[in-house]
């Protein structure tokens, strides 16, 4: 046992991100798993915020990593790996949601044809529901910026890097997104000022 104890006294080594990336590119699953463990929770959070569906978010997280690992040899380290991963996430989510929306639109058309919808009672809709709907209805570039900044706490610098735009563009998109929300939520102005 002593012999083994001596043999097991390996020096402490912490795998750096560039080392993990190089090993992953070379086919090392353990290194890939380490990268995955470090990045997956935030990738999933972002995917969930943008899809609102756990299964979809998981599917898109998987797709993000499959795509990221396939393209990892092209990653030059010019930005942080997390930034690059989030760029892939947004691309995957954006493409995925387009398909989902098309599918849901067909489903809705079918439902409307088969049922007589109940009259809409505005009074039943509270601030949260209205807000949910208002954010859902924002154009994608504004919604993404708002979700990343106000809900997930990304800085404008990070958003700009992920989306490949100037920081000023990120700020201006956030401003537009907030203005549109204010406008849509105007009926609740009393509620939020009380």
């Amino acid at each position, binding site marked *: 046992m002593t012999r083994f104890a001596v*043999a*097991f006294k390996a020096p402490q*080594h912490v795998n750096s991100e560039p080392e993990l990336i190089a090993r992953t590119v070379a086919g090392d699953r353990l290194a890939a798993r380490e990268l995955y463990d470090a990045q997956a929770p935030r990738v999933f959070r972002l995917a969930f915020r943008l899809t609102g569906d756990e299964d979809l978010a998981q599917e898109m997280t998987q797709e993000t990593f499959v795509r990221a690992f396939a393209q990892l040899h092209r990653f030059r380290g010019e930005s942080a790996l997390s930034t690059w991963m989030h760029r892939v996430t947004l691309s995957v989510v954006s493409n995925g949601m387009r398909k989902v929306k098309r599918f849901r639109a067909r489903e809705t058309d079918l439902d409307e044809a088969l049922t007589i919808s109940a009259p809409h009672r505005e009074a039943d809709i509270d601030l949260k529901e209205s807000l949910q709907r208002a954010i859902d209805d924002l154009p994608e570039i504004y919604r993404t910026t708002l979700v990343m900044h106000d809900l997930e706490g990304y800085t404008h*610098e990070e958003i700009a890097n992920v989306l490949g735009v100037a920081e000023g563009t990120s700020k201006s998109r956030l401003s537009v997104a907030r203005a549109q929300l204010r406008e849509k939520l105007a009926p609740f102005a009393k509620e939020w000022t009380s």
Partner: protein
Amino acid sequence: MTQHDEHTPELPPAVRDAARDYNRPPELKAADLDAMWTAIESQSFRSDIGGRVTDRGSTVRELTRRWFAPRAVMQIAATLLIGIAIGRFTAGPSNAFDSPSVSRRMTQDTLSLAEPYSSTSSRYFGQAAALLVALPAEARDGRADARLTRRAHDLLLTTRLLLDSPVANDGRIRNLLEDLELVLAQVVRLPSSGTQGRSELELIRQAVDQGDVLPRLRTVVADISASDND
């Protein structure tokens, strides 16, 4: 909100608070992470027997680059490489196209490996057995400390190196190495905290039991030792 948006009018506090609940992500469970990983792994990494990632075009230099970074495996790895080199130099012209020469003789009870494979393999199998025997005590409640994880990780690297060496030409050793690879990979993934590891540890125990891993390890070590004494 942050220093970056001082010129962007804030949302009213009530709206801001309500917005935080917009598509609020659930806590990602370890089981979900593992399930996603399984799907990612199967799509991203090609594998051969035992799910091992290999690069068929890899050379000894490539293996060196890929696996030798952890200093803990340097000694064993270096010994294996010297063995391959010696095997190639001593191989006669008649078998120049054979795999690196390992004087290997299999009988029912003995397993003869030429040096340096014999001592290296014996040491490795001994270390693997020690880790598996100590595992229930060291990973109590399924929690593995950094030292245990590192030991398992280093042994896993050695396992893969051995799988790519002439030692694995022997079917019995190859099967054992492949089983050890799976078990060690599970040990490496044991969490350092929480209770999730309990079920993982139980799965490892079942894998070790069902595969008769420990008895096979002992047999192989004994056979190598016996043949050394011949």
